[in-house]
């Protein structure tokens, strides 16, 4: 699958980026193409492009705080989780997402 997403944590200096790495790393193992935009205290980095969002099959938002720019994902399938799930259990997350998608028509 083509997956795009956003990560953002409270202090915005560490877990935001760990969550991004974990999501990408585990995503590759499952054969997904993952692109994550970070919204740390420094601001938005690696901003998702319009084309990337358009081509995405799924959006993962891993955030403990309010993220900006959610309206870009209108009409997309969205999964919202706290950052600790992305950091601690990214593989289980992908398995769960697949199970969810398969159970839906």
């Amino acid at each position, binding site marked *: 699958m083509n997956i795009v997403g956003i990560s953002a944590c409270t202090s*915005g200096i560490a877990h935001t980026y760990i969550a991004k790495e974990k999501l990408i790393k585990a995503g590759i193992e499952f054969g997904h193409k993952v692109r994550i935009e970070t919204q740390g205290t420094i601001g938005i980095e690696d901003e998702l492009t319009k084309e990337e969002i358009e081509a995405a099959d799924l959006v993962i938002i891993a955030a403990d705080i309010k993220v900006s720019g959610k309206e870009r994902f209108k009409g997309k399938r969205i999964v919202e989780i*706290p950052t600790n799930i992305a950091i*601690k*259990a990214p593989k*289980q997350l992908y398995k769960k997402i697949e199970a*969810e998608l398969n159970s839906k028509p």
Partner: protein
Amino acid sequence: MLKKLQIKKHALTAISFMLPLVVASGLLIAIGNLTGGTVIENYQEAYSIPSALVSLGVLGMGLLAPVIAGAIAYSIADRPGIAPGLLMGLIANAIGAGFLGGMLGGFIVGYFVLFLKKHLKVPKWAEGLMPMMIIPLISSVVVGLLMFFILGVPIVWATDGLTSFLTSMQGSMRFVFGAILGGMAAFDFGGPVNKVASLFADGLLLEGIYEPEAVKILASMVPPFGVAISWVLSKMLRKKRYTKSEEDNIKIAFPMGVCMITEGVIPIAAVDIVRVVVSCTTGAAIGGGFSMMWGVGSPVPSGGLFIVPAMTHPFLFLLALLIGSVITGVMLFLWKKEPANEYAEDTTEEEEFDLSDIKVNI
């Protein structure tokens, strides 16, 4: 229901907005104080660079409640929440309700704006006026008046009551007096109760009574030191008490504490308010009691560890500070629960996680 309101997420959003402001303002005050600056009273007269730094820091601390309220309201209601949220924070400042008042105001006005956004129907031609005029005006009037006239009243009563209580206590046992003053100064981490105690101590300083000032300084440092001690204990005894992000906050709070800035503890207290407030207040009260009993006095109103040499009994002060901080630290260590959602540093093995709540929304 509670889960749907996402109170924690809104509070965390406010903290993430507030952190850079607290750190910058706190360090400005500390640097300014150390270089001999004071708050500028009259900008028409000449003032020094250190005084400019202190004043900027104090102005920044004054922005705390508005930024907290604005960020909470923004997190709840998106952009239309920002303006009314900032206003509620200003009211909290004006009536002396501090950061707790700001949080309360932010939540109330945020949900009110969200309610207006969802349920207030206007004719087509007025839709453009909704975010620009109607929502900010109605929410500011309704929640603003609520803050001024209803929520403000008990806070003013509490402030008045405490002040007269303190004045009447002055003649009795020194330990009790020091304990009350210390407890108050630590109770809300630089908020209105702390300001009452602080004002009281500063007032007595002008009368030539130095002891309450030392208690105030001690009580401002006990919370950050106590939290740091509980963290060190948890590391030494290998019992997890803080999440990784809380540990990062403690690493910021400790050096701020050295400079007598208590606000660094707020992010840790906000997540576990009862345990942290009770532990910090107890430690500061006992430390304050000893400091008062031993007759430690400080002729300088602030400056943290750096002005200890200027005190009348510096070693007794340090001893009282140590006692208070250790009590707070041990209490926190014993009382705090192991964090439920601890982040793993870097493990390839994943522990089992309950992901049944996760839904793919279309």
